[in-house]
């Protein structure tokens, strides 16, 4: 039997060792989540807006081939060169071929989780191409030789002291400087040089519009625009699920995206690219990389509605206390834990278990993906495929037996309370009870909820 090693648990353990940093990470992401709540509450129609977004996406997925063909046709008519890539390797090769055709050696890239997913950077660097990530957070993690730890806040795992030290080494800022304003200014100057010298700019795509044959890129920093407008060649890379039918639908998604991501009413720049500027060349790469497989699975296809806002990460109690890198995949957190096993079931079998299944992710998702239910389904699929670690499987089988026999469940509760009252130290011993690692077991209640409820009823009726 194949068994997944619990990579997430191990990496999370390492992250948790720096308690102060973990607390900061947890609180900061919760702060972003609270901003999201305020932004959502400012719109009385928020819930209906989510519903519309979800329905537009569901409709699009049910005609995805038609919309992609329409997008391709219209984009071509606009003068955009369209490419199709079955997987990451094909995607990377397409980019390299464009570079070679133009004898280009320098790329500036704005944030694109798709290129992370395809491991574009290491591929191009091996081919002798300079790749500079230009989103500030991405540039920071790039200088550290790390992947982003969050899809919207790539350097959220770092404190300003880390960044000050890093910039001192790479950008020559003063030793010990930690002022964010000063450090951002240094990065601005450093990256301006890169923008001005780049031959090719790569951007992601937030939304591609079948009706207009154009695409929209949203940033706060303006890095995607600076790159794309200054370079002779602009390559935009998108997963095939990013297409939407009409420009009018953007009104729905742009109202949801930034509010869900950071609590802003809208991103600073929402740029609509439709035709290359005179003298420039524009490419659009449509990438599958497992998405058609996800589409074919009724249980998991809803995950393709994702607009990559990051809200599910900010709210996830596991993500907040384990850090993005512990997910060992490009898209971390709840949604990443659904997407990753679809790409490599064995490698990512641990991720659907990195969740409390509390449902908070599902509650905040602007396109209403049933995230926690899909995570639960993955656990079953993985269990059946034998890709689950044996200790977890025993636990699951046990739970199965317990939940399918109500009398046993009631008895187990009573027995558990008795056991924990008599032998609390045993229940708290990590070697016997893995749940006691990093936590003290709570004091068991004197009475079960069921018994309490029955008693209340009796009181009322008697």
């Amino acid at each position, binding site marked *: 039997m194949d068994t997944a090693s619990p990579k997430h648990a191990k990496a999370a353990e390492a992250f948790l060792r720096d308690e102060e940093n973990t607390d900061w990470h947890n609180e900061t992401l919760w702060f972003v989540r609270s901003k999201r709540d305020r932004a959502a509450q400012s719109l009385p129609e928020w819930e209906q807006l989510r519903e519309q977004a979800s329905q537009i996406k*569901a409709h699009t997925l049910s005609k995805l081939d038609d919309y*992609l063909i329409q997008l391709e046709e219209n984009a071509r008519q606009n003068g955009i060169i369209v490419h199709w890539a079955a997987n990451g390797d094909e995607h990377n090769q397409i980019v390299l071929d464009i570079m070679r055709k133009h004898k280009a050696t320098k790329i500036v890239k704005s944030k694109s989780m798709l290129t992370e997913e395809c491991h574009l950077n290491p591929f191009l660097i091996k081919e002798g191409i300079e790749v500079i990530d230009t989103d500030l957070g991405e540039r920071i993690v790039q200088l550290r030789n790390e992947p982003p730890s969050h899809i919207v806040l790539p350097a959220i795992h770092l404190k300003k002291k880390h960044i000050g030290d890093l910039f001192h080494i790479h950008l020559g800022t003063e030793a010990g400087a930690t002022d964010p304003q000063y450090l951002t*200014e240094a990065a601005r100057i450093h990256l301006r040089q890169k923008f001005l010298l780049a031959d090719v700019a790569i951007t992601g795509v937030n939304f591609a519009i079948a009706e207009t044959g154009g695409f929209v890129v949203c940033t706060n920093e*303006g890095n995607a625009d600076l790159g794309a407008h200054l370079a002779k060649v602009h390559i935009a890379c998108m997963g095939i699920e990013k297409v939407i039918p009409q420009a009018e639908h953007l*009104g729905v998604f742009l109202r949801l995206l930034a509010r869900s991501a950071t609590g802003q009413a809208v991103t600073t720049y929402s740029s*609509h690219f439709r035709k290359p500027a005179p003298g420039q060349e524009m490419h659009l790469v449509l990438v599958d990389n497992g998405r*058609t497989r996800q589409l074919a699975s009724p249980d998991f296809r809803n995950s393709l509605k994702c607009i990559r806002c990051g809200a599910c990460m900010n709210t996830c109690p596991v993500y907040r206390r384990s850090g993005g890198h512990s997910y060992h995949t490009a898209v971390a957190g709840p949604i990443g834990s659904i997407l990753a096993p679809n790409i490599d079931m064995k490698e990512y079998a641990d991720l659907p278990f990195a969740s409390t299944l509390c449902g908070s992710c599902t509650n905040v998702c602007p396109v209403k993906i049933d995230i926690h239910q899909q995570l639960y389904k993955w656990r079953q699929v993985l269990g059946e495929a034998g890709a689950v670690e044996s200790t977890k499987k025993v636990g699951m089988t046990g739970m199965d037996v317990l939940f399918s026999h109500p009398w046993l469940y009631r008895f187990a509760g009573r027995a558990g309370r008795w056991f924990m009252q008599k032998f609390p130290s045993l229940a708290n011993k990590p070697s016997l009870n893995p749940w006691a690692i990093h936590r003290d077991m709570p004091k068991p209640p004197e009475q079960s909820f069921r018994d309490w409820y029955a008693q209340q009823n009796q009181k009322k009726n008697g």
Partner: protein
Amino acid sequence: MANPTTRETILAAIGRGKPDLLPLPETIGFPPNISADNLVDSFMKMVQTNGGQAIRVTSLAEASAFLSEEYDLTLPILSRVPGLEISNFTPQEDLRLLVDLHLVVLQGIVGVAENAAIWLDETAIGIRAMPFITLNLSIVLSEKNLVGNMHEAYRLIDTSTGFGTFIAGPSKTADIEQSLVIGAHGSKTLTVFLLP
């Protein structure tokens, strides 16, 4: 160039895997939550929330006077607003020279009261890099062109030009310990003049 086999494979896989046809919602969007007489107030408040400044003026001359007070007009300045003639910079063939731009003044097309996003298309912007590469950006907008929300904006704007963008403030980042810093890569300031 496009690989025809990959294209066909992807489209065929979608054809096999896609769910039964689901309808689009009958109506898209919502009426604005801001009443017509509150558009200006709401818009101006949001410009500030986004890190810019909004100023109500009665004429372009007033806007021009404000700009000459705020900025050193001997530095490279480019205005594309007819009637606001403070340009002293002519863009050259080489886009990289735009890096010297101190101030760019553009004519906004539609402003959204709910989030202070202002639509500018290629006719308003000219060279695409300009509003992003300049150190300071100013946008002139008529109050008549304010709408409540994004749905209304999309009904008005023309998305068939080569390039267009909603700009909602100066460039910003919070990537260093979540401290908000205004002025990442794009313009460090945004001043919006609202004309009657």
